């Protein structure tokens, strides 16, 4: 596993994970994540702009889509996702140029209603994203992005692709955690 900088010079506190092709521990934890050789921020962005991938996704989870918004169609969902991905990453660029304090406003702790049984801060900031999510670990003042997903259901354990994001978070936590450096980790959701 590698940790790569996102903004090396402009902002030194934002990172992304690049999983190894055969991360045995990730697979042991239940992950089935084929590495693309790209870090997770790139992976998320590329998925959210890939019409074929999005179509497959929304067709698979069509019922969840209709439960989310009964008037939504697959076609409209694809359009809205690609448009939102643009706006999402525009905001990331804009906000990450600012101080760590601004960065802390970009992320918010995962809601404990989303995942039971894990220690979280219970702050809740107002979200403005429809269904796009980037997940990160807060480590000191740094944020390490571990993955991204389209979240149509309330809980993360309800769907395999969301459960995978929890596994990835846990995997990166284990990576960063060591006998002499245990610290508070917070699972974060990008606003």
């Amino acid at each position: 596993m590698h940790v790569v900088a996102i903004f090396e010079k402009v902002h030194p506190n934002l990172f992304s994970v690049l999983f190894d092709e055969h991360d045995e521990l990730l697979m042991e934890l239940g992950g089935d994540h084929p590495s693309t050789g790209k870090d997770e921020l790139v992976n998320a962005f590329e998925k959210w702009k890939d019409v074929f991938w999005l179509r497959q996704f929304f067709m698979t989870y069509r019922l969840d889509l209709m439960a989310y918004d009964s008037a939504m169609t697959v076609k409209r969902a694809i359009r809205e996702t690609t448009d939102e991905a643009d706006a999402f990453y525009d905001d990331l660029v804009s906000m990450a140029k600012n101080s760590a304090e601004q960065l802390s406003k970009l992320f918010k702790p995962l809601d404990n209603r989303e995942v039971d049984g894990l220690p979280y801060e219970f702050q809740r900031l107002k979200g403005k994203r429809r269904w796009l999510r980037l997940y990160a670990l807060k480590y000191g003042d740094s944020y390490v992005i571990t993955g991204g997903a389209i979240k149509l259901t309330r809980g993360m354990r309800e769907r395999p692709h969301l459960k995978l994001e929890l596994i990835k978070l846990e995997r990166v936590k284990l990576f960063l955690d060591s006998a002499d450096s245990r610290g508070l980790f917070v699972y974060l959701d990008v606003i």
Partner: protein
Amino acid sequence: MTGAKKDNKIQSLAKGATASPWKELWLYKKENRQWLKKSRDIAMKILDTLEEKEMTQIHLAQQLRVSRQQVSKIVKGQENLTLETISRLEEVLGVELILTNMEIGKPKKVSPAFKKKKGTAPIKRG
């Protein structure tokens, strides 16, 4: 471990690793947003048509005489398609993917056989 030490740890882990190329990717897509949206809409139409006609991407590639990889790129919705490619796609798929200004709003020519005469029932096609 203090916050500063944690930050240092992350910095040292990232040291030596190639920086994420995401910003270049984002910048490229930002600068080409308009045509990428059109490419996206064309890709959606192609995929709908393939499903409708029960046609595979491999079959489409064969019809277009291009590689499977090229079709895969087209349906991702991120290709800067030439007019020639669009025309060939339209021909193979039997659908219109784009309409020019000359075509939009142009009244369709109706065959005299289908014109309804006042006071009479429409002529049924034999």
